[in-house]
């Protein structure tokens, strides 16, 4: 371990492959480009119309007046669509060597061998490799990319697409609705419990290329599914935009968990709209870890629509040099006996800035609802910054709403104790930070939490592992 020399943390997956994309739109956005994207994908007419309408909405919507600095985003300097390979690959051997090498470095095949139910690895804007185990298919579970879903299951897509996050929601949701490509589609039939987590890897791999994936998850009555999204991206000089939309429908007695380990390289604007609707006695859990990116603005939300529904957001945010993590959660209680819990842990170092921004709203009639919010922030040095912006709007009196937050530095006594036991200061900091985020990491599958712990240790020591 290099202690004294505070090396710039070299991005571990910061390699990039030569660009072999076969088709890409020209830079910038216009109705022609939106139309072109839809046409290339052979989409049904209603989707083309939806895209064009969303483009109009995108033009009229203003940039958010709050949150992180987005003034550097130049919408005219982004390529909105790239097709990585001509057609979908269904076996590992058929994949182009370069793409295979990229995946080898991230470890997709091993992960799959070990315990993945299905891999849907997204290379640039479309899913090029995808395998679904026989069991899933037998149970009627659909797990594919959104483009395939639109062609194969247009009725399901049409019924749900954009109903929870309409294009009018915000500027970036409108942009995504206009130019989306890729993303995952998950449909779990009534009573089916998917035992292994479904995973998808996303990568941005072309300069100035924004990735606009669109994910739709539908969990029918009494079903259970856990979806994992992990991000790693190579470093590029110019800024990249990632603007996803994720819509999740959790029906009566169903349970969905959505885990994200976001580790974009430090030039990516990560502006994501994620929302779930929980019906009667349904459970929705977001586990959200934001380690990378230049700017993240992401507030996973749960609309608790049915009686007894439960929502939970557990999140970790880490901001290093030149990073701003503006993340949080939204819980909206519409029905009686609903409960929500938000636990947020954030760490700022080397001048980084983390902001927790949250909304809790209890609507009239949501009697006997309970809300618990807890935000803890660690400031590792004097150049870093931490903000907490919670909002609680309560329109019902038979409720229990609790919010608490703390901001502090690492305990000096704890550091002193560990160093007195012969542990170096950097290692001691790593241990304490990992302890600090443990309430969230213990909810993440083992291989992710190991990776995350190692990553935090690396970030803390400031050296390359």
């Amino acid at each position, binding site marked *: 371990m290099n202690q004294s020399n505070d090396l710039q943390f070299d991005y571990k997956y910061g390699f990039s492959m030569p660009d072999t994309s076969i088709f890409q739109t020209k830079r910038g956005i216009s109705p022609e480009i939106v139309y072109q994207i839809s046409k290339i994908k052979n989409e049904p007419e209603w989707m083309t119309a939806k895209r064009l309408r969303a483009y109009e909405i995108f033009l009229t919507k203003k940039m958010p007046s709050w949150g992180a600095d987005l003034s550097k985003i130049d919408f005219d300097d982004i390529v909105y669509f790239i097709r990585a390979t001509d057609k979908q690959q269904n076996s590992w051997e058929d994949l182009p060597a370069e793409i295979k090498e990229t995946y080898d470095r991230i470890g997709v095949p091993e992960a799959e061998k070990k315990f993945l139910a299905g891999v849907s690895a997204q290379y640039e804007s479309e899913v090029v490799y995808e395998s679904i185990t026989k069991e899933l298919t037998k149970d009627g579970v659909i797990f594919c990319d959104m483009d395939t879903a639109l062609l194969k299951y247009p009725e399901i897509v049409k019924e749900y697409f954009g109903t929870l996050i309409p294009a009018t929601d915000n500027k970036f949701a409108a942009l995504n609705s206009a130019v989306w490509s890729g993303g995952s589609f998950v449909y779990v039939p009534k009573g089916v419990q998917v035992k292994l987590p479904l995973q998808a890897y996303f990568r941005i791999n072309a300069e100035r290329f924004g990735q606009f994936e669109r994910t739709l998850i539908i969990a029918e009555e009494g079903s259970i599914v856990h979806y994992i999204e992990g991000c790693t991206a190579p470093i590029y000089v110019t800024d990249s935009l990632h603007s996803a939309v994720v819509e999740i429908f959790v029906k009566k007695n169903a349970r969905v968990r959505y885990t994200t380990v976001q580790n974009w390289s430090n030039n990516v604007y990560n502006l994501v709209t994620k929302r779930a609707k929980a019906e009667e006695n349904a459970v929705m859990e977001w586990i959200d870890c934001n380690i990378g990116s230049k700017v993240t603005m992401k507030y996973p939300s749960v609309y608790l629509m049915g009686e007894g529904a439960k929502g939970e957001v557990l999140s970790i945010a880490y901001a290093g040099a030149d990073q701003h993590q503006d993340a949080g959660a939204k819980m909206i209680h519409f029905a009686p006996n609903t409960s929500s819990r938000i636990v947020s842990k954030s760490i700022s170092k080397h001048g980084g800035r983390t902001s927790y921004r949250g909304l809790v709203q209890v609507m009239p009639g949501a009697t006997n609802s309970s809300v618990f919010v807890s935000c803890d922030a660690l400031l590792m040095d004097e150049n870093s910054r931490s903000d907490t912006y919670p909002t609680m709007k309560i329109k*019902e009196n038979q*409720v229990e709403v609790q919010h608490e937050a703390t901001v502090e530095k690492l305990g000096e006594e704890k550091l002193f104790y560990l160093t007195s036991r012969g542990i170096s200061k950097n290692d001691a900091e790593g241990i304490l930070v990992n302890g600090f985020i443990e309430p969230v990491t213990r909810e993440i599958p083992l291989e992710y939490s190991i990776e995350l712990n190692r990553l935090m240790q690396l970030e803390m020591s400031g050296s390359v592992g």
Partner: protein
Amino acid sequence: MLAEAKGRSPERSRRNKHMKFIQIKQGKKSKHVVNTPGEYIFFIHNYSGEVDIEIKSQEAKVFIYGIYVGKKGDNFTLNTIQHHKIGNSISDLLIKGVFFDDAKFIYDGLIKIDKKAQKSNAYQKNQNLMLSKDVFVSSKPNLEILANDVRCTHGSTTGQLDQTQVYYLKTRGLTEDTAQKLLIEGFVGDVFNKMEENGVDDPVILERIRQSTT
């Protein structure tokens, strides 16, 4: 206990000399600058508007206490700012609200610690009791922390009276109304106790405050 109390009293009377009591009144200036060390107590009652407190002195201890009682047609909007510009200072805010009928309370609080205000401690707490279905409460306790050697916490709770406590009092023979009244008194009384602990022991001031809040 007795020895402890005795031992504390000279210190308290010494502190009292330096303790400044400021009651925030409607229509008066909303910005207050704390320039000298010592204890300051700000008291807010059913006040709508901004209370902006700038701390520009070391060894300054600023307490902000607020009581809101909202009834039919009441609509309160409160903004508080605890801005630490110089470190080694403390600010501690406690706002309690009891709301009946269709009362509205919109609270927006901010703790801001400047980069050079190291070793600041800042606390902020807002607790609200909602005693009617038509009450609306919005609470935004914000933190903006730019220094690292600090400790800042905030908390906010909103809800109804603890039903198990009401039940307990009723099993002791109290009526629902009396039980409610007692619990509300206890809830608000907490603020008075804190003020007394921090040196507001002038019976005239205390009586005036009590009068104005009941």
